[in-house]
């Protein structure tokens, strides 16, 4: 499966599964040093891989760049990302 930061290209290429993030080029996992953000991206990608059944599905979480709070997803009870 693939991460994507250019939706139009992903729609044209049609990978099996894609997680699209409307974030700046060069930052597909988020900001440098932002561990929580990076972990959330990876966990969302893994969840997508496990749950999607329709080939070519693109999932786009609503995580506005620099306006989303990411807690530590490895701590039990931590909430989902939110703007």
């Amino acid at each position, binding site marked *: 499966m*693939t991460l994507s930061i250019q939706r139009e290209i992903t729609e044209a290429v049609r990978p099996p599964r894609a997680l699209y993030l409307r974030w700046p080029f060069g930052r597909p996992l988020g900001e440098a040093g932002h561990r929580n953000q*990076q972990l959330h*991206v990876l966990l969302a990608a893994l969840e997508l*891989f496990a749950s999607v059944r329709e*080939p070519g599905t693109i999932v786009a979480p609503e995580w506005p760049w620099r306006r989303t709070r990411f807690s530590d997803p490895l701590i039990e009870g931590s909430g989902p990302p939110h703007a």
Partner: protein
Amino acid sequence: MKVSADVPWAEATVPIERATLGLVTTGGVHLRSEAAFDMSDPRGDPSHRVLPADASPADLAITHDSYDKRAALRDINVVYPLERLRELVAAGRLGGLTERHVGLMGHVEDPLLPGLTGTTAPEVARLMRDQRADIVLLVPA
């Protein structure tokens, strides 16, 4: 493997907590000790580099002129999240990682595209298949 009309597809048959993941980045990541991607050709470089899973960030370099590398140079996890994936494995959220991952340089134009699609891509697929990867994650830059 089911093939839809135009999308290659393989069912997820292993729970994520037991799955093995291989990582592919197009961010131009390679070992410092190996040849960099060729930036002298404006049409790009369709080759790939094998990245050992035990390589530390200090062992890695980035060669790519077509994206803003500043964040990736400060934290390579931005385009090659191996450290983060190791954390997920340690936390039991992912089964494991392959021993070798792959770096590509994502800027490739004709007439070099057949080298990417006809040579590099099948080699990368074989590498992942031979390592029994259940999941391959492609990270663009």
